[in-house]
């Protein structure tokens, strides 16, 4: 449906320097899927989205939507944003303050290439306003809407012309925490119902994991990893992805031995500062390479009596943080402090001894420079 190949976009900073915002970005979004560009600010995710929209002109690459090339540096094609027929929700919502709710939503139908009768416009606008539950506010001044309502109006305006592609630029970032969570479900429901192909930009990993079919994690203009939310979270391909998406413990060391695909124990052993750590299913590391073993806090097991099995160390509880639904433990193991998230039923006191177990299946080893 949407295919991006070898996209390079640069822009001039206010000081006149050229900023390399997107570097060799390529991905494909299948019909009806929600694809998220996730990364810290300045990683190039918004620039990539704006290049798809046509609001930025990339230096090189090709963008194709449903077989229609909207940008190609090689073929010299650049379709202006107003002729691409995509819907877009901006971070600031960009609700026009001089129009009321209805007028805002009707604008794309009035200015677009399709000629609609007054009645048709009315019908389409009211239908989309109903979908976002704003139909009762149609005649209200847009400036009197609350943040959440403005957000939904922006969505309605993007959807009203039944776009080939929906682009969302951090649409939830201006809402307060409670509303953001509610709108997350709302957005997911709408997208799944309408089965509209969507590209979503966010810096909030929880949002990305909750909404997406696929996620591309970006850093410094480049895509670091593309995968399903589960793949991104459970099998991060490098330290940046592991660190940016969720919390993690890194244990740095060198590879002592690699597992062999044929053997019973397909395990790689990493020599680290806390001792040898066995890691399951690592294919592309060689002995003597420096690697970081990433393990999520919820995968760091804690027990008061020594458990059976591998990857067990004795440690000491350094600090505890009670979070309500969970307790975060900081456990000192040798020279290292590991973070572990436990159910509040574990009541080991600060200063007491505790046993740490790492499930090799939950450990991911990745090369470090």
């Amino acid at each position, binding site marked *: 449906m949407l295919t991006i190949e070898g996209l390079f976009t640069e822009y001039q900073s206010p000081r006149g320097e050229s900023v390399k915002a997107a570097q060799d970005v390529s991905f494909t979004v299948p019909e009806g899927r929600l694809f998220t560009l996730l990364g810290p600010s300045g990683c190039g995710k918004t620039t990539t989205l704006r290049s798809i929209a046509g609001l930025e002109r990339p230096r090189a690459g090709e963008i194709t939507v449903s077989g229609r090339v909207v940008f190609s540096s090689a073929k010299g094609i650049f379709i202006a944003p*107003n002729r691409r027929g995509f819907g877009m929700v901006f971070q600031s919502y960009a609700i*026009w303050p001089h129009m009321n709710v209805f007028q805002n939503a009707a604008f794309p139908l009035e200015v677009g290439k399709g000629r609609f009768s007054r009645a048709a416009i009315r019908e389409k606008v009211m239908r989309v306003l109903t979908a976002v539950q704003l139909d009762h506010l149609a005649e209200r001044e847009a400036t009197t809407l609350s943040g959440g309502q403005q957000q939904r109006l922006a969505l309605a305006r993007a959807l009203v012309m039944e776009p080939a592609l929906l682009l969302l630029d951090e649409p939830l970032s201006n809402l307060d925490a409670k509303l953001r969570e509610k709108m997350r479900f709302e957005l997911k429901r709408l997208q799944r119902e309408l089965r509209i192909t969507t590209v979503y930009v966010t810096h909030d990993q929880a949002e990305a994991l909750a909404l997406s079919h696929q996620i591309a994690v970006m850093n410094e203009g480049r895509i670091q990893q593309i995968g399903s939310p589960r793949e991104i979270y459970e099998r991060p391909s490098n330290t940046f992805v592991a660190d940016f998406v969720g919390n993690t413990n890194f244990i740095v060391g060198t590879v002592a031995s690699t597992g062999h695909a044929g053997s019973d124990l397909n395990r790689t052993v990493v020599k680290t500062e806390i001792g040898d750590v066995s890691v399951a299913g690592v294919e592309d590391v060689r002995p003597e390479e420096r690697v970081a073993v990433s393990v999520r806090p919820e995968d760091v097991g804690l027990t008061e009596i020594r458990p059976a099995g591998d990857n067990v160390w004795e440690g000491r509880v350094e600090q505890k943080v009670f979070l309500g639904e969970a307790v975060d433990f900081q456990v000192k193991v040798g020279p290292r402090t590991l973070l572990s998230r436990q159910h509040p039923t574990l009541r080991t006191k600060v200063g007491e001894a505790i046993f740490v177990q790492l499930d090799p299946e939950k450990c991911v080893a990745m090369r470090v420079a």
Partner: protein
Amino acid sequence: MSTLAPSDSPTSPLETQAVDRPADSRWDWKWVVIGICVAVTAYLALIPLGFLLWQSFRTPQTAAVDAVFTFQNYVAAYGNTETLRLFWTSIQFAAGTSIFAFLVGTTLAWMNERTNTPFKALFFALSLIPLVMPSILFTISWLLLASPQIGIINLVLQGWLGLEAPPFNIYSLAGMIWVDGLHYSPMAFLLMTAAFRGMDPSFEESATMSGANIFQVVWRVTLRLTWPAIVATLLILFVRAIESFEVPALLGLPNGIEVFTSAIYQAVHRYPSLVGLASAYAVALLLITTAGVYFVSRLSSRGSRYATVTGKAFRPRQIDLGGWRWFTAAIFVVYFLLIVILPFGVLLWSSLQRFYAVPSMEALGNLTLDSYRFILAYPDLSRTVLNSLMLSLGSATIVMLVTSVICWIVVKTKIPGRWALDNLASLPMVFPGLVLGLSIMIFYLNVDVGVYGTIWIMLIAYVTRFMPYGLRYNTSAMVQIHKELEESAAMSGASWSTTFRRVILPLLKPGLLAGWIYVMIVSIRDLSTSILLYSPNTQVISIVIWELWENGQYVELSALGVMFITALFFLVLVAQWLGRRYGVKD
């Protein structure tokens, strides 16, 4: 909801339509509109300057002799001590006027912003009234008040105190400074009010908390922080004063006190007219104003270093003056008397006389409306009024629309060289009205495209002269429009011209309307730009006032003046009401 779901066909109707359209339709009106606006701006800004410089190196052209290249104009202009005197007088006049206006304006602004003087709000509203008084009428009214022969103040004081000689002589450098300084004091008041309002009072409060007393606070914090505003205000006033024409022409020339503007007028208005000499003077005047405008722009671009102007409105701390607040209130009253009541009163009085007479019981018995009848029966009065109205409405509309596109390019695009466009549109700022009129006159005398002597030449002059002001109003409104408001229109499928018409212009409306009102008022008041360009068919109201003055028809002039000021006043009221109605803040 089902129709909102993507259809099964690979392309939606939208896309097929876009593909089917001929390629040239995506050309849009964008480049046509932008091209026209840039061309108009460049033409208006560069032509007068270029021709003025060119003409200053030419001998006078007559039927027999063609003009040739010469330095003679500069030799004539700068080769004698007469010019040195001219320069010195101009500087004295401009410096005196700007300092006087600044002191008056700053004192009033400080009293209004930082003290608890009673009736401040009323005063602030009244302080805007003088802005509608055309300079020529203000000058004439002070002439009627303080001329040695007929000045009411002089005669009254002579009568009361038994003086031999009249105490005031308005036909002097001091008199010129007094009148022009008073006339520009509302401007100083507004500029300094903005500076005081924009200053975060916590700067002063933290100085107080550090143990500074009130004088230390004022000297070491308030003045240091408002310093850029003070210098900028002084420079702006200086440029305005050195450009002013009405006061030097009416008050200076009768007594042989010449400044650059009046010298230029004299050089053109003699036979044969010395256009080359006038140009040489004009170039010198341009150099002075350019330096002034350059320093003002330098100051305001560096202004961000000073935290004073944040654009945020602070709640100012007010000093309790105690009993002194009645004294400051009295100052307000006296000021209002000097700047509004007395000038308007004397015009009103003189308009009701058959021949000009000093107020007395005897004269009171001779009140008549004859002068109003004369004015209303004045030949071509309706055409003159229509000219004034058409010119001011036309120039205000053109200026605001053209500069809205210009400032869109400057603020919203990343087109290289857009700063040059900004400077180009601001260039006419350095032209005194008289010099601009002179340059445009020279150009269209030499390049005959049929506008010389028509109303179009005046429209061109007004649009050129007031373009920078329109640009300022539009720019300050444009920078507040979030770029996503425009981008979301593009994503909705709107073309550039649709976006501009349906999103940018409506959002720009506050600045657009405020600027439109301003340009309309300054162009309807204008005398100095028009005076070298008008012809019998294209007279405007201020020119008729000027002609009545030259003919010595004081009472008729006063009647016209009273009607003009009243009309302008109501025009401003209506404009402000419209502005408030349609969302102009302040």
